[in-house]
């Protein structure tokens, strides 16, 4: 039989340079990844410089704003919107590690730590939240609230509600997230401690953080179990935080805005933004940080599909709310639609609608875009900008409603004829927005110094299950074991 005729028409898939091909030996994997963690590139410091400038501008903006006092809620709309953006784009990102891990998907492995690391940015959201406790007036102004203790006197709520509960919830979320990162890093800290130079900070820090990790089967069992529980708990806390934030810090400020779906929409938007954040993170790690052997098309593609599905979800949730409010034609519902969608922020809404729904839908549906290294990151930038604008549209509009905190103003119906005008950002607002972006990046980069950004042990575990490309008669197939 001539050998030329035997050549299979199907070349093995790993001929594609875009597909990551991690090393197959455990020691090489660990050695490379520890080396990457201990070494810093120039790109890192360049990024620190740029985002550092942003952060300084942000602090300046905040201080100037603070000088005007906290009584005027409308002036703080952009600041609160940025808080919501941090909670949205950063704090939801660990879900990209948690959910596929529960479903035993292998493609998540190279990006799971990078996703979990976003929970460290939760510290920033906690810090950012503190001033909001003073900006948000107490519920005694007669707003509707979630905290009705006595039906006959619905406004008699315990003091400092909802401030104290929201703070506790955000704190819970952040602590859960940090615990998750730490537990997931335990085995990797042990690897770093063994390989880092004697006496270095990294060695002392890793040794301390590893808590005497040895790698007994009991310890492995506990790590996996704890990660499962913490992951499930993180998701519940995340949904709960979005529920509290979207109602107490947004919906209650707009009289007549009664939208039972909105808390879920707020959380779903966060998941969409999280997928986008992770696409971008993965792309940056591959392109600028030298992880191209680990992160490739599989990750970008998997996340791209996720973004696509979540874009559809965005529209469905939005339309479900809009249709019911629009159809009812009740005056206060029409006023809410006018304020948030068709009125002063119409152009912002149009931009959001395009960036988070129309563009992702019509580009990612197309295989050459979805199945590429450049397509999903580009769409992800659009989605993040869209989410940024969406948060501005809602929070700035809500905080500009007149009479917040004033008990003499009617709090159940929004007056259609006296809706607030568009609140444009002033220079300090722009500084605050830049600061938010800068600080998000800086905190994440700092976190990546303390915790390894790539999960070494999950990568090694993959080597057990991925049997690589094997010939199957005349075809090449990839044999993948099912974990657990």
């Amino acid at each position, binding site marked *: 039989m001539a050998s030329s*005729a035997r050549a299979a028409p199907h070349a093995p898939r790993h001929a594609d340079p875009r597909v990551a091909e991690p090393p197959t030996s455990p020691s090489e994997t660990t050695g490379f990844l520890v080396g990457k963690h201990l070494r810093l590139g120039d790109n890192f410091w360049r990024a620190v410089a740029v985002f550092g400038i942003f952060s300084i501008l942000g602090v300046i903006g905040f201080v100037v704003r603070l000088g005007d006092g906290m009584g005027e809620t409308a002036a703080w709309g952009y600041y609160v919107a940025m808080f919501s953006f941090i909670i949205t784009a950063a704090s939801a990102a660990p879900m990209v590690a948690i959910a596929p891990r529960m479903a035993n998907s292998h493609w998540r492995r190279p990006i799971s730590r990078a996703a979990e690391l976003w929970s460290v940015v939760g510290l920033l959201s906690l810090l950012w939240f503190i001033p909001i406790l003073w900006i948000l007036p107490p519920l005694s102004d007669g707003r509707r609230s979630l905290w009705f203790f006595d039906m006959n006197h619905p406004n008699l709520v315990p003091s400092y509600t909802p401030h104290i509960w929201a703070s506790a919830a955000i704190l819970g979320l952040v602590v859960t997230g940090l615990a998750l990162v730490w537990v997931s890093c335990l085995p990797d800290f042990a690897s770093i401690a063994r390989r880092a130079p004697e006496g270095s900070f990294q060695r002392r820090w890793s040794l301390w953080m590893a808590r005497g990790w040895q790698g007994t089967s009991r310890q492995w069992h506990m790590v996996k179990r704890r990660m499962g529980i913490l992951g499930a708990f993180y998701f519940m806390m995340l949904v709960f935080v979005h529920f509290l934030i979207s109602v107490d810090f947004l919906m209650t400020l707009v009289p007549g805005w009664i939208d039972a779906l909105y808390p879920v929409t707020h959380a779903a938007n966060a998941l969409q933004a999280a997928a986008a954040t992770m696409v971008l993170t993965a792309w940056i790690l591959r392109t600028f940080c030298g992880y191209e052997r680990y992160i490739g098309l599989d990750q970008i593609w998997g996340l791209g599909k996720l973004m696509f599905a979540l874009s559809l979800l965005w529209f469905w949730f939005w339309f479900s709310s809009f249709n019911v409010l629009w159809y009812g*034609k009740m005056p206060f519902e029409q006023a809410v639609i006018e304020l948030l969608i068709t009125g002063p922020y119409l152009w912002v809404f149009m931009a959001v609608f395009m960036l988070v729904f129309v563009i992702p839908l019509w580009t990612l549906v197309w295989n050459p875009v979805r199945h590429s290294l450049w397509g999903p990151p580009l769409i992800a930038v659009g989605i993040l900008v869209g989410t940024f604008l969406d948060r501005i549209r809602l929070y700035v509009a809500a905080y500009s409603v007149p009479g917040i905190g004033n008990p003499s103003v009617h709090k159940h119906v929004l007056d259609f004829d006296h809706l607030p005008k568009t609140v444009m950002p002033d220079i300090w607002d722009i500084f605050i927005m830049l600061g938010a972006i800068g600080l998000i990046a800086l905190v994440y980069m700092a976190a990546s110094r303390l915790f390894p950004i790539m999960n070494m042990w999950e990568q090694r575990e993959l080597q057990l299950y991925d049997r690589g490309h094997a010939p199957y*008669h*005349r075809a090449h197939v990839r044999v993948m074991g099912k974990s657990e």
Partner: protein
Amino acid sequence: MLAKKSVLGLFPEGQEDMAADALDALREEGYTHSEYEIITGTPYPEGTFGEEEPKHTLFRWPLMGAACGFVVGLVLTSGTQLAYPLVTGGKPVLSIPPMSIIIYEGTMLGAIIFTVIGIVIESRLPRLFMGAYDERITEGYIGVAVTTDQDRVGKAEEVLKQVGAEEVKRGWES
């Protein structure tokens, strides 16, 4: 023009390599991929037998269907409302949210129907004459069918026998 004849070689389940060898041997004898095909009772991973990758254009079908459905939905919703302009519930005669719901259903229905038609046509179905076929194929046997000019079918039969087909039989397709 010469009439086409077909012949089928059968290989038992587990003899995938032998069937692949048969395709190689046929290729070597100068048969092209429009003349031979592999027939199986279960989907094997693509390329198992070294066969050529089938090309299809199924993805165009739902787009065409969706476009048709969209237009029908749009015409139906706007046309009926303009023809019978009854204002209900204070809503405009051409209300976009309700219309979009029906247009959406029309679009999806069009896409689905066209996709199904596309699947049938692209699968080269319906097929009236079975040609060279054997009922054991749906029981695990692998068939290698050759449909070619009358004068070349004998050679194909010989090749199939040579490779080691358990049984070689002629089809009755014209």
